[in-house]
């Protein structure tokens, strides 16, 4: 990693967990200590980090600001005992109710450029702020919308499905097989929605944990069908990192930020964040307009395949 990229990573700071994580880019993960639990005294401890190897915290801690816990009855709680170290963040989730919990974050970001009085203006922020701060009918308006979801699921006693109710925003996982009912060697079926509609022909990457102990990482890919669903059989029990990204139009990635276009480039992890610290972005010099419109939606989850 070059010094410049290090700076970029630092600058990305808060937003790091929300980046669209491409195949070889640093991977954000939320790793629970257990996914299947019993009894009312059950807790899970969770590690959250951004790293290349799974699941080894050796790069950056994931910021906890955006991480929430959705309980089986749909209510949202904060994490407990949060701590952010150099390489990883840690927190606890008491499972006070029976059923399935979702632990994770969702972010929605709009980048825009437009012309006002002959000057190029730039915006980056939430869709709500975009609506407030960017004038309606702005000249030369270009937008790049990105959404990022990163989550994991844990279940105390019998699994429930309240936390999977689609919101219609970004890429979402719909369980056909419940994520906490996945067993190695058995086919599991999941479905992806993009903005509430089946995400057809979507490439889904699975990367098994413990890659440090293998010469080859062991990643594999599957594709969704027309209805957004796909089948996957986990070869071995263990934790898996699942990721899917939809990207169309402009990515906002700058040519000098890494090989353009390809998600596999080392700059991939910075995708969707142009000008971050680079020329033309932020306060340095005159703003450069976005090259065009675009969108990206990324989904990441950490799933456990149980031993049979």
């Amino acid at each position: 990693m070059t010094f410049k990229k290090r700076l970029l990573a630092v600058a990305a700071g808060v937003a790091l967990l929300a980046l669209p994580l491409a195949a070889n880019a640093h991977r954000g993960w939320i790793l629970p200590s257990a996914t299947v639990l019993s009894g009312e005294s059950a807790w899970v401890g969770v590690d959250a980090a951004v790293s290349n190897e799974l699941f080894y915290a050796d790069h950056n801690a994931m910021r906890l600001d955006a991480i929430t816990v959705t309980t089986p009855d749909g209510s949202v709680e904060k994490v407990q005992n949060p701590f952010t170290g150099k390489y990883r963040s840690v927190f606890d989730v008491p499972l006070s109710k029976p059923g399935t919990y979702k632990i994770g974050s969702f972010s929605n970001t709009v980048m825009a450029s437009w012309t006002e009085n002959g000057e190029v203006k730039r915006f980056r922020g939430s869709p709500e702020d975009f609506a407030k701060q960017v004038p309606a009918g702005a000249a030369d308006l270009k937008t790049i919308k990105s959404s990022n979801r990163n989550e994991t699921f844990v279940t105390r006693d019998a699994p429930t499905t309240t936390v999977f109710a689609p919101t219609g925003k970004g890429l979402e996982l719909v369980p056909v097989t419940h994520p906490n009912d996945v067993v190695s060697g058995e086919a599991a079926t999941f479905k992806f929605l993009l903005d509430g509609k089946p995400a057809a022909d979507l490439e889904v990457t699975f990367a098994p944990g413990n890659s440090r102990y293998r010469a080859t990482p062991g990643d594999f890919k599957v594709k969704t069908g027309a209805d957004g669903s796909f089948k996957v059989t986990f070869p071995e029990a263990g934790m898996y990192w699942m990721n899917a990204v939809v990207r169309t139009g402009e990515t906002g990635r700058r040519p000098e930020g890494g090989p353009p276009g390809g998600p596999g480039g080392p700059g991939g992890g910075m995708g969707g964040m142009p000008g971050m610290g680079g020329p033309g972005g932020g306060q340095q010099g005159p703003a450069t307009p976005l090259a065009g419109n675009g969108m990206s939606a990324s989904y990441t989850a950490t799933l456990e395949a149980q031993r049979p």
Partner: protein
Amino acid sequence: MKRSLSLLTFSALGAAGVATPALAADLNVTVEVPRLTVAEYHKPYVSIWIENPADATAAGTLAVWYDADSKEDKGVKWLKDMRQWWRKAGRTMSFPADGVSGATRAPGPQKLVFSGAKGPLKDLKPGQYNLVVEAAREVGGQEAVRVPFTWGKPGAPATAKGATELGAVTVAVK
């Protein structure tokens, strides 16, 4: 009062002569809890359940041995370690479960009789099943042993043997 009632039911069915034979039978099970020479020994948690061999679903739980008296977690915290049973049956049950919950047992052969007039056996349709005994031991391992049996008529005992956490498991319909 209860006992005499069920006796009455029995004789009535017997007199009718067309009662399903299942009702008259008991399931005799012997589970050997192995004696293990380990530094830290805890008696295993054990679940005993009936499995439909066709689709590997559970057809009922006969017994669960665990530490229900544990002040810390009432023993339920570790029930999920009997992973196959937990997935197929345990996670939808509530504990303690009447007629199912029991204390952990010491090493040696444990002789059990499950009455065909009670619990999941009462409504079990005649046919082929597996009796599954699954053990999970604190700081130890987990193992499930399956023994096939035919419900509905008395049969010769069948035996299967565990390798690590369970010894011989013998099942006979009588």
